[in-house]
C-alpha cells in the first residue's frame, strides 16, 4: 500500500466522522453515569430510535429536515423521560446496579417497540446538504461529515452551557458530586436524575439522526453503536464530559487507521486492546482525574 498524505488525510476524515458519532453516544453515557453511577444500556437504542424516527417522519410526511430533526429529537427525549419515570424513578433501592439492570430492560423494550411500530426494514435520510464530495488535500470529504462534526461541537457546547449556566445544570453537578449534601440544600435529586436521562436520550437521538444519511439505520443498529459509544466513554474516562470528545475521536481514528494498516477484521480488537492497556495503566481514562483508590 502506498502511504501518502492524501491517504492519511482520507483516513483521518473517516475516523473523525465516525469518532464524532461515538463521542456523542459517549456523552450520553457520561451524563447518566455522572448522575447515577449506572451504565445506561439504552443509550445505543436511543441513537437507533432517533435515526429511525427521523427516517420514518421523512418517509411519511415530506417535511423539511429542519422540522423533522427537532421533532425526532423531542420524541426520543420524551421516550427517555418516560423510561426514567416508569422504571428508574419507582425503584425502591436505586443502587447503580439496579438502575443498570433496569436500563437493560427498557433497552430491550425500546428495540422491540421500534421494531413493532416502525418496521424491520433499513431506513435512510437524505444528506443534509447534497452528496457532492469536497476535495481537500487530495482526499474527498462528504458534506455530511462536516455536518456531523459541526453538530457534535454544537451539542457539546450546548451541554456544557447547560451544566455551567443553568440552575438545573448546576443542580445536576451538585447532585452528582454529593447526593445527600445536594438534597440538604434543597435540590430535588430525583429530578436531576430525570433530566440526565432526558439529555442522554436527546443527545443520542442527535447522533442517530446525523449518521443515518451515511450508514442507513434499522431497529438492530443500536447495540453496536451503544457498545462503541460506551468504549469511547471509557477511553475518555467515564462521567467526564470532555473525555467523551477525546475518547470518541480517538476510538474513531484508531478504528480507521487500524482497518487500513493492520486489517479490517482486527480493527475492533485493536481498539479494545488499547482500552485494556489504558485500564491497566491509566484506569481513570485519558482525561479522568486520578481519583482511583487502590485497595
Amino acid at each position, binding site marked *: 500500500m502506498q502511504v501518502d498524505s492524501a491517504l492519511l488525510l482520507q483516513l483521518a476524515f473517516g475516523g473523525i466522522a465516525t469518532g464524532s458519532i461515538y463521542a456523542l453516544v459517549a456523552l450520553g453515557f457520561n451524563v447518566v453515569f455522572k448522575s447515577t453511577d449506572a*451504565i445506561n444500556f439504552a443509550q445505543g437504542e436511543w441513537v437507533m430510535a432517533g435515526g429511525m424516527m427521523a427516517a420514518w417522519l421523512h418517509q411519511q410526511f415530506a417535511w423539511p429536515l429542519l422540522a423533522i430533526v427537532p421533532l425526532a429529537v423531542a420524541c426520543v427525549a420524551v421516550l427517555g423521560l418516560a423510561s426514567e419515570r416508569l422504571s428508574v424513578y419507582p425503584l425502591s433501592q436505586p443502587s447503580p446496579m439496579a438502575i443498570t439492570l433496569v436500563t437493560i*430492560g427498557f433497552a*430491550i423494550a425500546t428495540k422491540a417497540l421500534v*421494531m413493532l411500530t416502525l418496521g424491520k426494514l433499513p431506513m435512510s435520510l437524505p444528506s443534509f446538504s447534497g452528496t457532492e464530495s469536497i476535495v481537500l488535500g487530495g482526499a474527498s470529504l462528504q458534506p455530511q461529515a462536516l455536518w456531523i462534526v459541526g453538530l457534535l461541537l454544537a451539542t457539546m457546547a450546548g451541554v456544557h452551557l447547560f451544566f455551567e449556566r443553568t440552575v438545573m445544570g448546576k443542580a445536576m453537578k451538585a447532585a452528582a458530586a454529593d447526593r445527600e449534601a445536594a438534597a440538604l440544600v434543597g435540590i430535588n435529586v430525583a429530578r436531576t436524575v430525570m433530566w440526565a436521562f432526558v439529555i442522554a436520550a436527546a443527545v443520542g437521538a442527535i447522533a442517530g439522526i446525523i449518521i443515518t444519511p451515511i450508514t442507513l439505520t434499522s431497529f438492530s443498529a443500536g447495540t453496536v453503536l451503544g457498545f462503541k459509544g460506551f468504549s469511547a466513554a471509557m477511553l475518555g474516562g467515564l462521567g467526564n464530559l470532555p473525555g467523551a470528545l477525546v475518547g470518541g475521536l480517538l476510538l474513531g481514528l484508531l478504528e480507521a487507521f487500524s482497518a487500513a494498516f493492520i486489517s479490517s477484521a482486527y480493527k475492533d480488537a485493536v481498539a479494545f486492546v488499547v482500552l485494556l492497556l489504558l485500564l491497566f495503566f491509566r484506569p481513570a481514562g485519558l482525561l479522568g482525574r486520578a481519583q482511583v483508590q487502590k485497595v
Partner: protein
Amino acid sequence: MHSAIGPATYRGLAVLWLVLLVVPWVAPNNYILNLATLWLINLLLVASLNLLMGYSGQISLAHGAFYGIGAYVSGVLGAKYGISPWLGLPAALAVTGAVALIVGWPTLKLRGHYLAMATLGFNAIASVLFVELRDWTGGPNGLVNIPPYVLFGWKLDSDRVFFYFTLVMAGACLVLLLNLLDSRTGRALRALSTAEIGAECMGIDVHRHKMLVFMVSAMIAALAGCLYAHHNAFVSPESFDFMTSTMLVVMVALGGTGHWWGAFFGALVYTALPEVLRSVGDLEMLVFGVSLVLVMLFFPRGLGGAMDWVLARFGRGRAGSGRND
C-alpha cells in the same frame, strides 16, 4: 443479600438431583431432554457468575467469552488435533484460568467497576479472535466435527447418556461451590462483599479473594463450554459474544444476586427464552424487556427473593433459603 448456606442447602440440592434422575424417563421427546441438558449447562454459567457478582460485588461482562474459550480450546484440540476431550478439559481450564488472571489482576486491585470495563473489552477481543483465527476455529461458520466424550470405550453421545453425564459434572461443580461458600474462604467472601474495608481490617486479603472468585467463576464457565462443545459437536462465535455475557448478568439479577437458588431460576429463564422467542412472534421481546423492569421494581432480590417471600408467607420459609445473613 446472601441466602444462607448450610446443611439444608446440601439436602435441597441432593433432593433436586434425585428428582432430576427421572428426567430422561419422563421427557416426552429428545428436544425436551436436550433442553434439560442445556439448562444444567446454563446453570453452571449462571451459578458461577452469581458467585462473582454476589460475593465480590464485581460484574464480569466476559462470562460468555470464558464459556467460549472453554468450548473452543477443548473443541479445537479434539476436532483438529484428535486430542481426547478428557485432556481438552484441563487444557481449557488452564487457559481460562490464566486469561482470567491476566484480565483480573490489575483491575481487581481498583475499587469501582473496572473489572466490568476490562471484561467488556476482553469479550470484544475474544469475539474477534473466535472469528479470525480461522485455521483453528473455522471462522464465522463455526467449528464442526467436535468428538464426543468417550468413557471406557463407550461414547457419551446419546442424549440420555449425556444428560446423566452433565448431571454428574454439574452436581460436582455445585457441591464444590457450596463447599467453597461454606468454608473459611466463603465466610471471608461474605465479609468482604458486605463491608470491604471492614473485612480488610479483619486481615482478609481482599484482592486475593476477589481474584480467587473471578478465576473459579471463569473456570466453571469454561467447563460449561467444554460440555456444550462436546455435546453439540459444533460451536460458532455468536454463542459467546457480548450479548451472551450481558444476558448472563441479567439472568443472575433476575434470579437474585447472591441467592443460591436464584441461579436455578435464572438458568431456567435463560434456557427457555430463545425457545419462546423463536416459536412465537416479535411481541415476546417487548414482553421480556418489560418483565425485566417489573421484576427489578417489585422483586429487587430477583425470583429467588420472590420464592423466599412466598415460602415465608405460605410455608415455613425453611430449606435454608428463607433467611438472610
